[in-house]
Structures are given as structure tokens and as C-alpha cells.
């Protein structure tokens, strides 16, 4: 259960940024390994790429693009917070980052199916 003092939008924005960052950090080694197969083992790369037609993998890709997009837009918000003149609309900006991430990942998903 989320402790009461953490139950507010900017703490959730922090948690989402941290979780998406960790998720991407775990994904990247697997991603680079798979890309490396193009050089070392093209046949097995093709069999992995065939997996991408699986509906479950498409949903997972949607999740991945969402993590990437929400980390990207959330990171822009944090850089703006730390480097640009202060804006009091941090909650709206955090909500905007999530909305933009849903837009990007949703568009990706609709293109993929």
C-alpha cells in the first residue's frame, strides 16, 4: 500500500520516472543483445523477430514504448524544472507528460496491430 504522505501526483510522477527508468535499463541489454545477433547469428535473429507478430509481444511493445515516452517527457519536465525559470504548473506538466506518452505509445500500438 502506498503510504499516505506519498499519495499525491508529483510523488507518483517521481515513482513513474524511476520505475520507467529501471525498466528501460533492464530492457536495453536485451535489446542490444538481440541487435548483435544480426552480425553473429542472423537465423536466430529472424526467429526472434517472428515473435513480434505474437499479440502478447505487441502489447509488451506498447508498454515498452510507453515507458520510453513517459521517461522522455517526464525527463524533459524535470530538466525544465531544474534549468528554466520556475513554473508553478508542475502537476499539469506531469499529467501532460503521461498524456503525451499515452498518445505516442497508443499511436505506435495502433500502427502495429
Amino acid at each position, binding site marked *: 500500500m502506498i*503510504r*499516505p*504522505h*506519498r499519495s*499525491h501526483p*508529483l*510523488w507518483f510522477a*517521481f515513482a513513474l520516472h524511476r520505475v520507467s527508468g529501471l525498466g528501460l535499463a533492464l530492457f536495453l541489454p536485451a535489446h542490444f543483445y538481440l541487435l548483435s545477433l544480426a552480425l553473429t547469428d542472423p537465423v536466430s535473429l529472424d526467429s526472434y523477430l517472428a515473435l513480434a507478430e505474437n499479440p502478447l509481444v505487441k502489447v509488451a511493445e506498447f508498454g515498452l514504448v510507453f515507458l520510453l515516452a513517459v521517461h522522455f517527457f517526464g525527463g524533459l519536465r*524535470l530538466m525544465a*524544472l*531544474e*534549468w528554466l525559470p*520556475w513554473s*508553478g504548473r*508542475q502537476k499539469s506538466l506531469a499529467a501532460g507528460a503521461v498524456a503525451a506518452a499515452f498518445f505516442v505509445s497508443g499511436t505506435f500500438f495502433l500502427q502495429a496491430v
Partner: protein
Amino acid sequence: MGRDELDVSIWRGDANGGRFEDFKVPAQDSQTVLDVVSWVQQNEDPTLSYRYACRVGMCGSCAMMVNGVPRWTCRTHVKKVLDGQKVTVAPLRNLPVIKDLATDMDPFFDKWVKAAGVHHPSKTRDDPIEAVNPASPARVEADTGIECINCSVCYAACDTVTGNADYLGPAALQRAWTLYNDAKDADQQTILDAVSGNGGCHNCHSQGSCTLYCPNELNPMKAIAGLKRATAASFFKRRK
């Protein structure tokens, strides 16, 4: 249980640990959380330890965790925070407990000094008083932080303090930002050096709990962002 009775859980113990004790407290109009705690101490258990002084939101001594959230108890109406008929009162987070609801606030105040939150005079007593233009941007910025009452609510709300015992915390950093913008303070570089080391402003994760719970509606998150900009600008200037 009648509607005019509150179920109150109060944390009892000391630095070695403790547990919650339950009390029934008569509900009254305009009753504050501090009134509830005082009623228990005066009618149920005179050994209950807690701290307060002014009862009007000026002294900053009565902050406690109320239903898991840090609040100034003297200005918090219990009816506004009730969970059903229940309210839980515990000592502030992130500070050592002395006994029951009274925490040791020394680490909190020590960090004010560590953050260079002390006045660095620019003149002697023989000089004329520095004229301060209240409309100047720096003064307007400093004015946003001067109503801090040192209640430690922001410090108790901050998870960065929980994770890093050296982190100076929102109140001390906001104090540093206020002095940094004060025309009467002579040593801005000392302030920037004090807030940019280990435990300084760059530890802040901008979770914003400090700003959300500050009872005086100050904005330490904004102050810390200001310090981040000022320390970064100073770093690049000095490298030239």
C-alpha cells in the same frame, strides 16, 4: 460507539521502539488534533509526552504525523482529517523520537546551520542601514520563503531525507535560498558551497511533498530548484 466520540490511536514509546495505544475522546466543535492529544494527556494518561507552545500556528513546535501525513496539529481541525471516526497520531518521521509524540529536532536545526542558513553581515553597526527595494526581483523571491516557522513538516514529508541522512532537507535549503536572494547577505558563495556538496540541493528528487504539506503554503521545491540553477550557473562561471 456514539458519533460524538473519536477513536484515537496515539503512538507511545521512545527511541527503542513503541506501539499505538487507543483512546476514546469526546468530539467537540472546532476541535483541533492538538486539542485531542491534550485531552488524552489531561484526562486519560498524564504521562503522554508531546510538544506545543503557541497554539496559533506561529511557533512550529506541535507538528506530528496525523493519519500518516505530517501536519501542524494546532491548526488542523480533527473533523477534516478523520478516517470515519478514527484518527492516528504519531511522532514526525525522519527525526529521532525522544518520547511518545515528542521528537528530537536537533538534526533538523543543525542542518539549517550546515546549509549556511545564518546571516552573513555585509555592514558593521556603524554603517547606515542597507536600503532594500521591496519590488526588486531578488527581494520578491526572498519574501516567498520568509514565513517558515521551522515546524519540520516538510522535513518529515521528504522521502529524500528518509533515504539520505545527510540530506539538508527542504526547510534548510529554502532558508539558504532566501538568504542567497537577500541584499543584506554578504556571502552568496558560501551559501552555494554549503548547499552544493554531499547532501545538498542536487539530491532533491522533486517529489514535491514538502510543498504539498507546508502548512504556511511555502514552496521549498521551488527554492531548491532555484539553488540548483544558481549552483550550476556558479559552477560554469568559475570554470571560465
